[in-house]
């Protein structure tokens, strides 16, 4: 009997009584044996397998027969001649027909059957639990863990089952009981252990209980709340307050504002973008005080950290006078000074921030807060002897909370109370907060503190954070926010009537926060350290609260109350586009490390809703800003992110059976999981050149092959910073600030001439060009909006000049659908054909064309491969198999997946019936607009070609097609500046 057959047989016999004789062979064998000895040789070769099915019964029968032999009787109606039985020897059974049967044999057989049946009946059938054999009305909840709840007859079996289940369960540490494991010190140890692989943010435990956590970029981050909250978070952003930990980039000059930049690798401006960052300058207390050490904090996404850190280090080594003027050295530069870096930066969305210049850290506490993964021997601070610049990596040294939404003022003003100033008569010697008493002795600082307090008080009267100049920074010293924690979670509401001083408010809105008010003690590492160390623990605080004479009354700690220096940074909302400007604006709160949870809970108790990574993406999508790092295809982090995403999507795709997943080849989608930017831009370049050649226009593009990289590297940054610092006083208007941001780059670009190097991808970020593009896209609209600016007409020459300079550039575009449809990531942006526009003109509700179904040339190949494999399997491994492999493999490597285009992609632009222009990177149904909206990149060359070919009214119409659909939908393209 072959193996498979045997297995099948065993399966059949599984729930059968042991002596069930299904196998015909066994019956025959048993029968013969029973009947006469002549069957012996026959039986001999059957034995091996019959042994599995017959257990004790066949063994007993010979004995029984022997016994019955002694008292041979004919009491049964059936005659059975004993002598002809198995003892009779070799003669055949046919001659010796038994004449009698003894009653005992008969009884034996019956008894055996009874026992077999009994066994079968009492055995529980199938692989269900015992508990499931009970009818439903007899089941009790506690049965699952308490065996005694079961009926007694089932208890024994259930006990066995329970033991089995215990073994399957994860082993807990045997050494400690549950209570010991839950005790605080042990938990802290375990948590420290678990933080070694991934960095935990300060609010990790809080998040882990309420969020789906993911490991990303070396951190444990909350991806999305476990509750359904998509819409609720949107509402919170629009009308209330959403609390997230994100980081944003803003750059701030002389401490008054925050600023943002895109960093490029030195000397390679249009290419090799490093990534977007935000930064803050430490404010100068007095304008004249130039000799003071300056500090610049740069905040960046953890994925960008390595690249940028390396680059900055390299930059500072080579002497750059402009730079050294900006960054001033100071502080301790001992890189060996590391202990457990603690702190939890709580950027919710998990970004890490790095501070440049001057750092010092950290203290090791029993509780590891902060970056547990860092190698303690690695230096985190670098000094450049040439320039005197010190760079320190301040990862996890601070917390940054982001409040988004119009109510963020109310939340802030209610949750935070400015610290009280010490008066002389109080005995200050004993308090641990020496620094504050020192500060209070200085009348200048006290008056500054009062001014900051005044400004902060005014904020409560402002309806939306968007009204405040973008990137405003306000320093503050506040008391312990845990002290006036409300009893119940409530929602903070704005109270306009309390802001008595309308005049002052108006002045604040107009002029922004005074420069000096942006000073904060947060810049001083020593103070931060002392604040973190002297934090009163929750336990102590609660104990003191319980010792109050009147329960529930306000706790007064007096001079023992901690004073926490913080920085508030205004976060601009939507700064591009026409409608909903200022949407999604809010405040970022910077805290010293260790204080994350102390501020987190009070914010939540004031009605802030917490979002995760997903909400951050949604926020940036509605804001129309590119998401980091997914929307920066030209920086290394963006490339890595895209690869990872493609891998995940592919894995998800291949998990489904081929019949249950879209066949992307038939749908004409070449790259459903990633966006082949390189190929797209290359194709467009070739297309345009071909077109030019056809039209016999001499193409200047052909001559420009030499890579001219004479652009000054990070010149934009430094120059710009310079400029800004010079004219701080003049930069009142935030629009101007934002504008100058890029023109500086644009300027250098223009000066540098056509620095475009062939073959490298870049994203167009020059503000001037973008503005021009935007005007071209929008037709008359944009021109009307900015009538004063000299607009270049959309002429062939203008297009050519742009596309020559950036032959392989991408443009960040926003697409809004005209009718139905909700785009998703990797949706294709296509160029409408002439007849589509004609149809649309005729019928305003025209849905859009359909892509004809494509053929799948790989299907037969896959089938052939599969057959071959099957054949090889049958043949068993041998020389034949290896031959077959050798035949089959050259064309299709083992990774031929049904429905995915294998190998290198053909021409991406012309693969489908409509020419491909770009891809969507973020897209969804927009609750703000009420229709589908998408953000993505389009090829600059392609976009220009399309725009110039379309007539005025229809300019900017494109088609969108999701990867898993054949339907194109009309959308309007817009470039937002």
């Amino acid at each position, binding site marked *: 009997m072959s193996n498979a057959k045997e297995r099948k047989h065993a399966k059949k016999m599984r729930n059968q009584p042991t002596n*069930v*004789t299904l196998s015909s062979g066994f*019956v025959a064998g048993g029968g013969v044996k029973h009947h006469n000895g002549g069957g012996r040789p026959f039986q001999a070769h059957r034995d091996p397998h019959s042994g599995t099915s017959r257990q004790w*019964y066949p063994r007993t029968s010979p004995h029984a027969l022997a016994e019955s032999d002694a008292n041979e009787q004919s009491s049964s109606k059936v005659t059975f001649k004993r002598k002809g039985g198995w003892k009779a020897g070799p003669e055949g059974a046919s001659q010796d027909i038994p004449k009698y049967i003894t009653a005992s044999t008969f009884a034996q057989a019956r008894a055996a059957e009874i*026992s077999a049946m009994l066994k079968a009946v009492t055995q529980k059938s199938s692989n269900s639990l015992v508990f499931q054999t009970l009818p439903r009305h007899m089941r009790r909840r506690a049965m699952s863990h308490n065996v005694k709840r079961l009926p007694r007859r089932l208890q024994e079996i259930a006990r066995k089952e329970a033991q089995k289940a215990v073994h399957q369960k994860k082993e807990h540490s045997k050494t400690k009981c549950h209570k010991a494991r839950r005790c605080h010190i042990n938990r802290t140890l375990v948590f420290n252990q678990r933080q070694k692989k991934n960095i935990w943010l300060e609010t990790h435990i809080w998040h882990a209980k309420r969020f789906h956590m993911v490991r990303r970029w070396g951190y444990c981050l909350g991806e999305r709340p476990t509750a359904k909250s998509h819409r609720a978070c949107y509402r919170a952003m629009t009308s209330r307050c959403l609390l997230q930990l994100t980081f944003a980039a803003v750059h701030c000059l002389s401490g008054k504002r925050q600023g943002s930049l895109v960093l490029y690798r030195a000397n390679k401006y249009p290419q090799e973008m490093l990534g977007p960052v935000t930064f803050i300058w430490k404010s100068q207390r007095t304008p004249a005080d130039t000799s003071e050490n300056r500090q610049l904090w740069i905040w960046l996404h953890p994925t960008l950290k390595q690249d940028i850190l390396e680059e900055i280090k390299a930059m500072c080594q080579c002497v750059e006078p402009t730079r050294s003027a900006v960054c001033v050295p100071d502080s301790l530069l001992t890189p060996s000074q590391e202990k457990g870096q603690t702190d939890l930066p709580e950027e919710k969305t998990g970004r890490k921030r790095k501070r440049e210049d001057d750092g010092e850290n950290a203290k090791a506490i029993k509780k590891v807060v902060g970056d547990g993964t860092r190698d303690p021997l690695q230096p985190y601070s670098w000094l450049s002897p040439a320039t005197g610049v010190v760079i320190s990596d301040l990862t996890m040294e601070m917390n940054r909370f982001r409040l988004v939404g119009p109510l963020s003022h109310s939340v802030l003003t209610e949750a935070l109370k400015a610290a009280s100033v010490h008066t002389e008569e109080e005995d200050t010697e004993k308090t641990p907060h020496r620094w504050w008493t020192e500060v209070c002795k200085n009348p200048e600082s006290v008056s500054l503190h009062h001014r900051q307090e005044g400004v902060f008080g005014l904020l409560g009267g402002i309806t939306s954070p968007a009204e405040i100049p973008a990137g405003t920074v306000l320093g503050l010293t506040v008391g312990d926010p845990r002290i006036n924690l409300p009893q119940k979670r409530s929602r903070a509401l704005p109270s306009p009537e309390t802001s008595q001083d309308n005049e002052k408010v108006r002045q604040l809105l107009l002029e922004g926060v005074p420069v000096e008010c942006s000073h904060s003690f947060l810049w001083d590492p020593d103070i931060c350290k002392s604040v973190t160390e002297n934090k009163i623990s929750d336990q102590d605080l609660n104990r003191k609260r319980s010792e109050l004479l009147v329960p529930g009354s306000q706790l007064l700690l007096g001079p023992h109350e901690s004073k926490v220096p913080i920085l508030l940074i205004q976060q601009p909302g939507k700064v591009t586009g026409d409608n909903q400007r200022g949407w999604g604006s809010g405040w970022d709160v910077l805290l010293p490390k260790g204080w994350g949870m102390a501020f987190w809970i009070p914010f939540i108790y004031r009605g802030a809703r917490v979002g995760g990574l997903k909400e951050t993406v949604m926020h940036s999508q509605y804001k129309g800003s590119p998401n980091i790092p997914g929307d920066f295809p030209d920086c290394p982090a963006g490339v890595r992110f895209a690869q990872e995403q493609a891998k995940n999507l592919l894995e998800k795709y291949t998990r489904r059976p081929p019949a249950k997943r879209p066949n992307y080849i038939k749908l004409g989608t070449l790259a459903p999981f990633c966006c082949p930017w390189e190929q797209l831009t290359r194709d467009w370049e070739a297309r345009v050149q071909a077109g030019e050649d056809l039209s016999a226009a001499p193409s200047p593009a052909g001559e420009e092959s030499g890579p001219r990289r004479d652009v000054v590297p990070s010149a934009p940054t430094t120059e710009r910073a310079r400029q800004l610092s010079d004219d701080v006083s003049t930069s009142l208007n935030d629009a101007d600030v934002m504008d100058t941001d890029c023109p500086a780059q644009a300027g250098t670009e223009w000066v540098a001439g056509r620095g475009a190097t062939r073959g490298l991808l870049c994203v167009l970020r020059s503000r001037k060009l973008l503005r021009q593009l935007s005007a071209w896209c929008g037709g008359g609209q944009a021109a009307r909006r900015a009538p004063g600016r000299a607009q270049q007409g959309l002429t062939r020459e203008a297009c050519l000049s742009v596309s020559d300079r950036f032959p392989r550039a991408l443009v960040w575009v926003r697409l809004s659908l005209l009718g139905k449809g909700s785009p998703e990531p990797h949706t294709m942006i296509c160029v409408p054909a002439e007849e589509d526009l004609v149809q649309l003109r005729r019928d305003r509700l025209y849905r859009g064309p359909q892509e004809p179904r494509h053929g799948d040339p790989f299907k037969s190949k896959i089938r052939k491969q599969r057959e071959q494999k099957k054949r090889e399997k049958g043949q068993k491994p041998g020389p034949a198999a290896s031959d077959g492999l050798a035949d089959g493999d050259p064309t299709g490597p083992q990774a031929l997946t049904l429905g995915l285009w294998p190998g290198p992609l053909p021409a991406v632009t012309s693969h489908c019936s409509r020419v491909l222009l770009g891809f969507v990177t973020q897209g969804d149904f927009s609750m703000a607009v009420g229709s589908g909206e998408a953000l993505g990149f389009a090829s600059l060359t392609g976009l220009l070609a399309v725009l110039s070919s379309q007539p005025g009214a229809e300019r900017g119409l494109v088609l969108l097609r999701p990867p898993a659909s054949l339907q194109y939908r009309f959308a309007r393209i817009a470039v937002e500046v």
Partner: protein
Amino acid sequence: MVRFKHRYLLCEVVSEDPRCRLSLEDRVLGGLVRDTISRVHGTFGAAASSIGFAVRYLNAYTGIVLLRCRKEFYRLVWSALPFITYLENKGHRYPCFLNTLHVGGTIRTCQKFLIQYNRRQLLILLQNCNDEGEREAIQKSVTRSCLLEEESAGEEFSDSGGEEAAETMD
């Protein structure tokens, strides 16, 4: 629960010739029943009852047979059983007939019935027995089956346990 409902026919092969019982084989028996159905009920009957038809249990010593068929057509099978008059195996023909003991919805009920039935048979045998030695042997087997019942209610009956029981019998 969604499942195919079956009927199990618990039958006993009754034959004068003991060799008949001993030459029982599931394939032979299955073919025999199938042939009989097609003879009695025609092509329709054969086709209707062939779905899900199987011989689930067969004991050559006692001649007990358990047939399975779909619930919808079990009457066709049942009514065809009396028309079986002989069993043919390896060229030998043994006259016999099938006596249906029980019709059940699950194997389990049939097994339970079989226990009852066998026990009843043993008791009858015991009462009618007039020989001392015989009587003793039968009594032994009766008590053993009862003992087994108790045992098996407790813990699962292992191989060695069975062996011991067999030895005690000797």
